[in-house]
């Protein structure tokens, strides 16, 4: 047996899971898809004393349109479902474009939306997408009610989030895209399904004159978490999305705003180069889609 011993429970309701967390707090880990947690337990890099398995809580597994028009995704919705669900393709095409990049089908069949956000791996696709789409996340603790946290306040650095030890991420609300909006998700990995060496989630909204009203450029594998390159995106506001404007944004983001770590496969400088190339491609694609949405 690879993992160290632990106590295990698989409650059938969210309330029961929250009660367990309230009792075991910092000693407990939530088991969702387990596609990151079980490997680190197999290595004994993590030895939680208590596992709260939320896989038997059907109320966490949903994808639906909320009454407020947002796309609501339950924490336990698996990547494979997001890949296949027509509502996701229609309401959050950026998310739909990103999901097939997550690991391999075997992993996507088990891995969950909430698990990926709560794990906050800087190389993961979904935190970058959540940030680029201005997702809001609903967190709950036993007896304490809910709090909503904006994605930009949720990700706090390397594998770190705003979640307290006794809280569960319940769902995300993704606002509908504004009119005249285009998007693109691109990444470069050594093999399809490997962790990206560089990746970007981009969103561009045009004004009525066809100039950029707002852009978002969020990078993965570019620092301690998803990196929201606000200055680079700010350079585009009010501008025609020309080759020169794209180049200026790509230069700014890749030089000044991201800090990709050097690893065995690539130096930081090489990853900056990849990010710059991806920014060009993503902005071209997103601007083209925004124009199509206008036409």
């Amino acid at each position, binding site marked *: 047996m690879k993992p160290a011993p632990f106590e*295990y429970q698989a409650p059938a309701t969210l309330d029961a899971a929250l009660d367990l967390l309230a009792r075991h707090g910092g000693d407990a880990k939530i088991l969702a898809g387990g596609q990151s947690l079980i490997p680190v337990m197999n290595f004994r890099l993590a030895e939680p004393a208590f596992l709260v*398995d939320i896989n038997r809580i059907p109320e966490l597994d949903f994808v639906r349109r909320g009454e407020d028009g947002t796309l609501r995704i339950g924490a336990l919705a698996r990547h494979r479902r997001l890949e296949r669900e027509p509502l996701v393709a229609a309401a959050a095409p950026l998310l739909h474009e990103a999901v097939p990049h997550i690991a391999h089908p*075997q992993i996507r069949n*088990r891995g969950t939306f909430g698990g990926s956000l709560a794990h906050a791996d800087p190389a993961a696709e979904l935190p970058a997408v959540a940030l680029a789409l201005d997702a809001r996340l609903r967190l709950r603790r036993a007896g304490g009610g809910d709090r909503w946290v904006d994605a930009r306040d949720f990700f706090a650095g390397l594998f770190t989030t705003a979640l307290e030890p006794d809280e569960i991420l319940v769902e995300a609300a993704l606002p509908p895209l504004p009119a005249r909006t285009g998007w693109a998700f691109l990444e470069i990995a050594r093999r399809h399904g490997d962790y990206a060496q560089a990746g970007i989630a981009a969103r561009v909204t045009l004004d009525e004159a066809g100039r950029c009203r707002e852009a978002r450029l969020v990078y993965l594998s570019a620092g301690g978490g998803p990196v929201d390159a606000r200055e680079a995106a700010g350079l585009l506001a009010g501008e025609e999305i020309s080759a020169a404007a794209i180049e200026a944004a790509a230069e700014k983001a890749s030089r000044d705003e991201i800090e990709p770590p050097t690893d065995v496969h690539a130096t930081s400088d090489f990853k900056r180069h990849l990010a710059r190339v991806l920014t060009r491609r993503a902005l071209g694609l997103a601007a083209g889609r925004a124009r199509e949405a206008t036409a």
Partner: protein
Amino acid sequence: MSYRVSVTVNGRSYEREVEPRLLLSDFLRHELGLTGTHVGCEHGVCGACTILFDGEPARSCILLAVQADGHALTTVEGLSPSPGELHPLQQAFWESHGLQCGFCTPGFLMTLVPFLEENPDPTEAEIRQALSGNLCRCTGYQHIVDAVKLAAERRRAGR
């Protein structure tokens, strides 16, 4: 502390008492004696331990046996219709030299059987993408791609 696990594997029901830290891959091999599921890296990278969990491929080395309670699994032992007969994809692997040592083969088969059901006419790029989560150190993958093409052709021809 042990937990009761009731599970259906290849259509047959099993019930065992297990520790929660027992991995599903070890459960299949040591508790049920189904040693066709191979254990390679044991951290979800090599794909050798791939099985079907409620019909969808999953890596059994990063699932706990207790998580399978009440679920239906298929392992490589469940592929062939009867003893002495091969599943059409196994037959195609054999004919195309899709394996040499065979260690990775169960994982490839359990990944590719559902893939072909969903994509009866895959392109070579789609096949390569589908098997990107499985490592093979013998074949260089080319013969595996050939085997998938052969199986897909036969499937479409109804043979």
